């Protein structure tokens, strides 16, 4: 028996080694350039760019733009299709005016403008030009040509004369720039891709300089920029945006629960669930540089006071409302991000769990599998009269026996039942309505005893890392990869494997690839 186990292990190691070697040794498959994209700037990208330009204390409360649609699983792809409406442009213009007014107010002008006007009461083209050319270069992601600069300096001048105030003039010009489609719509470029991907912001001064000098077209120059960006604290904001998009947080902006059924799921708790998951991911993937697959097995979680109620763990009273404490939960009760409250609660009903929703979300968010929607004419009468059916397993039995439901629900329900130790608010439980919960289930044919076994099975599933590779690439380049890119994706996943599925190395590999740099025309 032992000999057999050893033999199996040796073979397994050999297979992995060969696969890794194969992937390592192969050169990058050639892919056609993807379509040229034009993305509408998101609320977060806007905020990150404004903070970079003008500092943290600019009030961005008026800069909350409409939610962009999700396309092929990602909002980043929806941004390439989102179009303008009068009300949306109104919002951009209002935000621009509010920010411009703050930039030139007495508290900020001396810090944020690189020069002082000869007279504060009238136009000063020299100083306006200096400020607008610097700022415009970041906003438009390239140096302004002389015609453009004349336009905006002209606005500043006319307004300054009209209002007898140099700074007001500058504010009008800045608001104009920030209302321009040259700022709001981001046309594709290598620098824009890098910066949106890694920082969720427009390119900074140094990256633009690297573009202008041609350094970005050279492998070493590109690598230097990528390494600089990976080492920057701004990487965390970029990765938070990526994780939020992958986990579809936008679709669950406000998860609310029935206060009678789940009193522990307070308003404060609902505000904390996304942050909890993001902290776990940042800690595991960036701080500890862990294996992506272990995100589904880790038992290290972050808890604040509001979430402490849900975990039934006491968080020290000294911990203020926004303080987070790292904790370990029992191994048998955890499956990393799958047992984060954000996942458990978002994919549930307001007052009960939903194995179906959880199974569907698991497959769609992490494995890139599509679970079909129920047919419109499905006969729901089988769900009437649930009296006496105390557990979800008993209630969902109808799916398993009804031929019209069975096909799709086999994809969702068995795997979803492994989550049943967690109620609709993400609280651990062993019984429902007094009946013991049985979490035995299966995932694609493998028997699963409980949630931690499910976490291990997901971590070992090849679809997990293939999906992550695919989504990251789509997020980075702004289009969903097609059949011509399949071979490339397999190759890139090999690179991911070769680096032990560590995120930073993966980002290096992806940004260094030809496919990433291939900007469509």
């Amino acid at each position: 028996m032992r000999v057999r186990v050893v033999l199996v292990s040796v073979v397994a190691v050999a297979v992995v080694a060969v696969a890794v070697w194969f992937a390592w040794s192969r050169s990058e498959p050639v892919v056609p350039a993807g379509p040229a994209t034009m993305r509408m700037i998101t609320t977060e990208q806007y905020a990150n760019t404004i903070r970079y330009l003008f500092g943290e204390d600019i009030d961005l409360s008026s800069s909350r733009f409409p939610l962009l649609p999700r396309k092929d699983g990602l909002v980043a792809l929806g941004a390439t299709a989102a179009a303008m409406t009068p009300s949306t442009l109104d919002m951009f213009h209002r935000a621009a005016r509010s920010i411009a007014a703050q930039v030139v107010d007495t508290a900020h002008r001396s810090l944020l403008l690189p020069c002082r006007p000869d007279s504060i009461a009238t136009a000063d083209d020299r100083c306006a030009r200096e400020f607008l050319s610097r700022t415009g270069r970041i906003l438009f992601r390239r140096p302004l040509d002389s015609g453009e600069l004349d336009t905006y300096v002209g606005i500043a001048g006319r307004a300054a004369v009209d209002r007898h105030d140099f700074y007001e003039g500058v504010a009008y010009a800045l608001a104009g720039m920030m209302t321009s489609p040259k700022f709001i719509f981001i046309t594709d470029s290598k620098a824009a891709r890098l910066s949106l991907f890694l920082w969720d912001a427009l390119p900074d001064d140094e990256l633009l300089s690297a573009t202008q000098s041609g350094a970005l077209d050279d492998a070493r120059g590109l690598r230097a920029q990528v390494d600089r960006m990976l080492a920057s604290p701004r990487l965390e904001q970029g990765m938070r945006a990526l994780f939020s998009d992958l986990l579809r947080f936008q679709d669950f902006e406000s998860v609310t629960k029935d206060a009678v059924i789940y009193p522990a799921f307070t308003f404060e708790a609902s505000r904390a669930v996304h942050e909890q998951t993001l902290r776990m991911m940042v800690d595991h993937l960036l701080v500890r540089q862990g294996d992506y697959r272990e995100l589904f097995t880790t038992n290290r979680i972050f808890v604040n006071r509001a979430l402490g109620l849900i975990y039934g763990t006491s968080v020290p009273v000294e911990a203020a409302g926004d303080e987070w404490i790292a904790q370990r939960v029992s191994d048998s009760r955890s499956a990393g991000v799958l047992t984060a409250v954000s996942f458990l609660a978002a994919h549930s009903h307001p007052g009960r769990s939903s194995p179906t929703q959880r199974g569907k979300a698991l497959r769609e968010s992490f494995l890139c599998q599509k679970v079909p929607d129920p047919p419109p004419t499905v006969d729901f009468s089988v769900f009437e009269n649930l009296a006496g059916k105390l557990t979800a397993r008993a209630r969902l039995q109808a799916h398993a026996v009804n031929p019209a439901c069975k096909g799709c629900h086999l994809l969702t329900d068995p795997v979803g039942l492994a989550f049943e130790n967690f109620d609709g608010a993400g609280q651990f439980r062993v019984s429902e309505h007094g009946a013991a919960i049985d979490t035995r289930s299966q995932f694609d044919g493998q028997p699963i005893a409980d949630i931690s076994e499910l976490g291990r099975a997901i971590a070992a599933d090849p679809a997990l890392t293939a999906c992550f590779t695919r989504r990251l690439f789509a997020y980075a380049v702004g289009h969903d990869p097609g059949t011509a890119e399949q071979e490339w994706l397999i190759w890139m996943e090999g690179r991911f494997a070769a680096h032990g599925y560590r995120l930073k190395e993966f980002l290096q590999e992806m940004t260094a690839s030809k496919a990433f740099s291939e900007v469509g025309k």
Partner: protein
Amino acid sequence: MSRRFDRRTVLRGMLGGGAITVGLPFLECFLDDNGAALANGLPIPTRFGTWFWGLGTNKEQSTPLQVGPGYDIRGELEPLRPVKQHINVFSRFATRTDGRPNFVHHSGVGILRCGQAPTDSKTLPNETIDVTVSDAIGGASRFRSLETTATGDRSHSYSARGPNAVNPPEVSAVAFYQRVYGPEFQDPNSPTFTPNPELMLRKSVLSAVLEDSSRLNRTLGSADRARLDEYFTSLRGMEQRLELMLQKPPPAEACYRPRPAAKDVEEGTNWDLVAARHEALADILVAALACNQTRVFNMIYSWAGANTTRAGLPTTHHTLTHEEARNAQGYQETHSWFVQRAMQSWANFVSRLASIREGAGTLLDNTLVYAHSEHDNAQMHGLDGIPVMTAGRAGGRIRTNIHFEGPDKPATQIGLSLMRAMNLNVGTWGYGSMATSEVVPGLLA
């Protein structure tokens, strides 16, 4: 919800649709040839809006039994009794998908607002009816249209210029008040008017931006060029509205400033929060109509497949429509309870409009509201006879207090009739088997 007891509240009557005060009967002899006119000779603008609620009704106990004028109110429509004289009910009109899938809780919206079934489960296939109307009449007011949703969800809007151009809704009454009645509000009845020089400057900035960016177009693919065109259209619209604000606004005798919302209703989907949010938003919206700040609006009470809840129920209204057994009378009682809450809010909305006196009648007389849901028989995702209603007389161009029965006539007849009532020159509306050039007989006055 605002609680105030001033002259207007008394006029408006009790919220909750109890006793309401209706303006004087609208007398056509007061109108000139072109429609309604004020005592000072200026025409009263006609407004258009939509009101949406999710999951339909239990028609077994809501559809009036009598067809034609003076129909009967029963069951779930009971809250509408006090405002029935302003309302038309449409039953058994057809909403066909023409071979496209029935995208549940979505296709019905597309057919009723766009004239054809959507091709995916998320987007609308073409511009919605409110956008068509606002393109015709919305240019003459400060806002082209105003969108609000009581669900608290910023993605909930059924007003779109196309699949990827959705008009974003207001979810916060505090922010909505600021947008309409903030520092830029110009009281149309103010005796003095000084054009704000800042508006002139802003307009010149926008013109410069437009000129500067007009060359962008040349380097883009066709889809992105179209997106840029949407941008330019929006920018020109913004310029025109600034131009408008540089002129003295025509007086609006019904204009009043609503009380600012002190704070927003807390987040949540419980029905009472939704109802309170609806009242708070309607408070500002109705005033904005009275002050001619917009002529087109969209209000969403609950989303299609509504996730509205009631304390203690483990699931949402939507899940209930699928799981609740029918009672001895053949309908779903808890579902019905939720429908009645929606109808109560709808009645409140109508009575609010009717409580504002304008010209010889009321604001409601000069408004046309298109209200509908997305399914008939939500349990089975039925599309036949999706409940539709209208409220208001569109300045005397619509008859009210009538129950129209389609049998199998395309529901687009309703939309077409409403556009004609708004004076739009639309010959046919809808696509495929939903295309129609016929109006609902007897609806237009």
